């Protein structure tokens, strides 16, 4: 059964460039990028119990930094990528110090406020960010001299980065540190009494989530070759949060499924319904009512029940 699942997953990852047209390949690339973003948010929301409504900050800032360094200052992609990720990670460290003064709703409001500040800056500092016009005419990097301009080649690149991100985050949550994080989520007081430093554990996780948020931001700007302040908007953060919760927070597959769901709905529903957000809302409502813990755990339970019946 496990092998069938793995084979299906491998097929789903490998088939798009072989069978589908550019539209679907590009959609698959977008899903992969959204999945990295949702996975990084899930470290906070699902494994850390820190619900953030400002995760777009890391995606947006990494994307803007890379866009500015490569277009305005003429940096190479390699150096620009390193500085963008390092800058975003450092920002996460600073934001973490501020946001982690609170927990729960207070934490959520601080992350929201900080991301709103960045969104406002992206709009208003138009001499740097080009404001509402965004920064256009960007290029994709050429790792090892390979052009990523075709849909298929970019897909392979995105798949490689997403697979690495998934593996790194999977190891992270199953490590000693990941266990400490989940312990601090469930019983912070007990964890402190056992010798763990809850604040430090949360802060390090916050920084790590910011790092992968930055990676997804780089991928985002490479894919779109364009960046606009909406990347930093609350909608962008909320969409990812929706994906994490719908897919199943605190699981590894959940954010991937959730990100795919949000993007598929966005692309298909918007072709038929003008107010596609309404459709997204209804689907989300349905999931919350029928599978409160998310699609992945929900289907897991269904599958287990189905297997018991047929045994």
């Amino acid at each position: 059964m496990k092998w069938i699942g793995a084979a299906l997953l491998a097929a789903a990852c490998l088939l798009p460039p072989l069978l589908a047209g550019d539209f679907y390949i590009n959609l698959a690339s977008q899903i992969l990028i959204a999945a990295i973003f949702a996975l990084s948010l899930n470290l906070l929301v699902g494994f850390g119990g820190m619900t953030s409504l400002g995760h777009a900050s890391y995606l947006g800032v990494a994307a803007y930094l890379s866009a500015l360094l490569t277009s305005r200052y003429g940096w190479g992609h390699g150096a620009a990528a390193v500085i963008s990720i390092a800058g975003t990670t450092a920002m996460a460290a600073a934001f973490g110090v501020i946001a982690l003064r609170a927990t729960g709703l207070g934490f959520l409001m601080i992350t929201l406020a900080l991301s709103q500040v960045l969104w406002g800056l992206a709009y208003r500092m138009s001499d740097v960010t080009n404001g509402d016009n965004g920064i256009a005419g960007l290029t994709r990097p050429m790792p090892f001299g390979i052009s990523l301009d075709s849909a298929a080649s970019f897909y392979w690149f995105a798949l490689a980065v997403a697979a690495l991100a998934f593996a790194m985050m999977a190891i992270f949550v199953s490590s000693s540190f990941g266990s400490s994080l989940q312990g601090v989520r469930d019983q912070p007081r007990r964890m402190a009494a056992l010798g763990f430093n809850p604040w430090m554990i949360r802060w390090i996780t916050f920084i790590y989530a910011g790092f992968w948020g930055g990676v997804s931001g780089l991928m985002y700007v490479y894919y779109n070759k364009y960046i606009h302040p909406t990347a930093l908007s609350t909608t962008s953060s909320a969409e990812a949060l929706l994906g994490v919760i719908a897919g199943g927070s605190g699981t590894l597959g959940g954010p991937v499924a959730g990100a795919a769901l949000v993007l598929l709905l966005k692309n298909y529903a918007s072709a038929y319904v003008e107010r596609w957000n309404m459709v997204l809302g209804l689907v989300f409502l349905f999931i919350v009512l029928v599978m409160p813990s998310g699609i992945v755990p929900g289907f897991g339970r269904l599958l287990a029940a189905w297997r018991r019946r047929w045994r």
Partner: protein
Amino acid sequence: MTLPRSEPALEVIDLKKAFGGMMVTHNVSLAIRPGERRLIIGPNGAGKTTLFNQISGDMRPNSGEIRLFGSDVTQLPPYRRAHLGLSRTYQIITLFTGDTLEHNITLGLLGLRPSRWQMWRPLSFYRDLATEARRVLDAVGLLHLAGHPVSEIAYGEKRRVELAMALAQKPRVLLLDEPLAGLSNTERSQVKSLIASIPRQTAVIMIEHDMDTALDLAETVTLLNYGKVIVDGDRDAVIADQRTREVYLGV
């Protein structure tokens, strides 16, 4: 460390804590010798758990001092005190309900090890942790349930996990907050013999209402009432004391 033999394991000096205008810890002073067995008794609301919360660092006193093996820990956060050899259990069971018993004990072991910061290696690779966790579970008679989640085991078994998690850390000072609460007679005697078997390197300070069982385990007794130490001393002397009767019987 070369400490004089007489140095107390835990010393509480003139501790004060008030919630608003109500004094819940009223100039409390205690000294616990290494390896001592101390029972803290007193009516409900006497400030016993509040005193524990201040010793463990969950709560800051308004004034006074707490010393662990001679060093002042009054301003230290709970996790720093844990690294100095302090461990505690809770009156309300505080376990990781979705995780297995083995994982619960493993967290207890991990808390004092530098490997708790390790991010690049799955926890399951640390075979020594698993072995040690199973040994601790065996010692409290729960090895057969090692793979079960805490949510599936009985209340009395959870009490023993609560105790095992603290014992796994081999503390030098152990605070037990009503370890017998809500247990049946059989379970009570199990936990009692468990507490009796705690090695002598560990000083045990216990809050307990079940006098019949608890007094057998205690060498010294402290009676608290309205946040004050009323009587303090050897078990038999405290029981015989007139003031103890007044507090408990209102005579």
